[in-house]
């Protein structure tokens, strides 16, 4: 499994996509926070005027909606198109190990991206008393959200075996998950379903985690969400073998 993760990470680092991902992510985070403000709110570091970083970290899911699907889209389709999947799946490794290996490689790249955001909390902590609890919670939350998006992307790649299709479907799904529970979106869905959409929403759970409240239910939600898609992914591979 680690061999597969390592192989994928290498192939990431050999391709422009990893660097585009890292640069775009860092630029988006810093740009939104310091220059043009959060989408839909226009809040920047300077207008908030305190050292709480919840606005900064609330940018993460927005960035991930496009960037994680873009990064995840190649993990399966490349393999399916070039036929190397036939090599991989005829080695003595199980399908779930291959899926998890690919997932770990993507997660590692997300983690590297998150490391690039570290300078912001470090710099901001120089301006006043810094509460590191929420920062820690926000990193956990970012990794969980990134992982969940990644698992959707992986699954879609295996299902569609076409990069562009996988990207569009994944990005749309991720966007939906982020927007769900938003008051604006709730206007379009029946009142009875509000509780449902709020429960599914990534944003509200992310916000709680980002405040440093590492709640079991929220963590469990993200991890089980991810697990479901990884299992679905394995099922897709197994189904391809036919019965």
């Amino acid at each position: 499994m680690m061999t597969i993760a390592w192989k994928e990470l290498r192939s990431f680092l050999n391709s422009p996509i990893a660097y585009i991902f890292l640069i775009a992510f860092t630029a988006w985070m810093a740009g939104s926070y310091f220059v043009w403000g959060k989408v839909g709110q226009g809040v920047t570091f300077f207008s908030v005027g305190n050292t709480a970083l919840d606005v900064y970290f609330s940018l993460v899911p927005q960035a991930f909606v496009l960037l994680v699907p873009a990064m995840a889209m190649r993990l399966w389709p490349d393999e399916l198109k070039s036929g190397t999947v036939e090599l991989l799946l005829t080695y003595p490794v199980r399908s779930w190990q291959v899926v998890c290996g690919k997932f770990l490689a993507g997660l590692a790249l997300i983690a590297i991206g998150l490391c690039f955001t570290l300078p912001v909390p470090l710099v901001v902590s120089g301006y006043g008393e810094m509460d590191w609890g929420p920062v820690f919670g926000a990193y956990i939350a970012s990794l969980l959200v990134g992982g969940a998006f990644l698992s959707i992307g992986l699954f879609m790649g295996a299902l569609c075996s076409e990069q562009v299709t996988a990207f569009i479907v994944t990005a749309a799904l991720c966007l939906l998950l982020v927007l769900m529970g938003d008051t604006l979106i709730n206007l379009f869905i029946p009142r009875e379903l509000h509780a449902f959409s709020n429960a599914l929403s990534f944003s509200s759970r992310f916000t709680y985690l980002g405040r440093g409240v590492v709640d079991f239910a929220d963590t469990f939600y993200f991890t089980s969400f991810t697990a479901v898609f990884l299992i679905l992914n394995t099922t897709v591979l197994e189904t391809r073998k036919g019965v």
Partner: protein
Amino acid sequence: MAMIEVDDLRKDYGSFRALDGVSFAVDKGEILGFLGPNGAGKTTTMKILTGFLYPSAGRAAVAGHDVMENSVEVRRRIGYLPEHTPLYDDMTVTEYLRTCGRLRGMSGPYLAQRMNVVTGLTHLGPKLRAPIHTLSKGYRQRVGLAQALLHEPEIIILDEPTVGLDPNQVVDVRGIVREVGQDRTVILCSHILSEVEAVCGRVVIINRGRIVANGAPAALALEHGGPARLSLSVRGAALQLEAALSSIATGVGTATLTEADGIATVTVLCSVDPAELATKAMDAVRAAGLPLVALTPGHASLEDVFRRLTSRQGDAA
């Protein structure tokens, strides 16, 4: 003990039946040629043996392990070169082989030593640091072969290993197959008949998802190859030759007569014993005073067998 046992294997792709009751066995240390026209089910059979596809019905076992129930054990024992040689193009040869080895649980000095052995065997020495996407078709094929041999597998399955290679490379690959086939079980899928004839001790011919022949190439030629051929050339005119042979010409088979550069040739598809016919014909031309230029007995080749078996089936369907 049979290394590979396939029993009444079926595979359906939707409503299309790709394999329809395929059964055969391969013994330890045997090089088996797996022949068939395109789309006959060769590759499907190999994909089932390597655990990449599950059969719809029937059973296949490798070294006693069922391909469905014990897929990982099966895959551990097989070295597989898929059709079209898929490789990770962004890696160098060394990186690629190392990754393959690790995926097979190899490491340390053993992996290094095996990488040395297989790159030596496949003459990959000069290309070890080259990224795979820069390699020619021939080198790609060798990398695929090296990958399949890396873990000293008991069973090696090669799907069309010489497609797209130039004649020298073909001879190279054949040499490698023969060498590793000395102490291992090899299945060589191909539709290049001369290759199979040159390398394999036994041949299975598959057509439209069914096995239509199974045996040594020579035995198959005798059994399925159709009438033996006898060709006789003399210096002289076609009419002279015809006259000379007229006494023995009845009931021996279909004959064709040609003449070129003062040499007349008769070719007979024998319905009688060709050796006996040859003796009679020689006596007849000698009696007529025609100088004999050549007398060629023609065996039915594997190609004849292949064409007869795979087109006959096509006509019936």
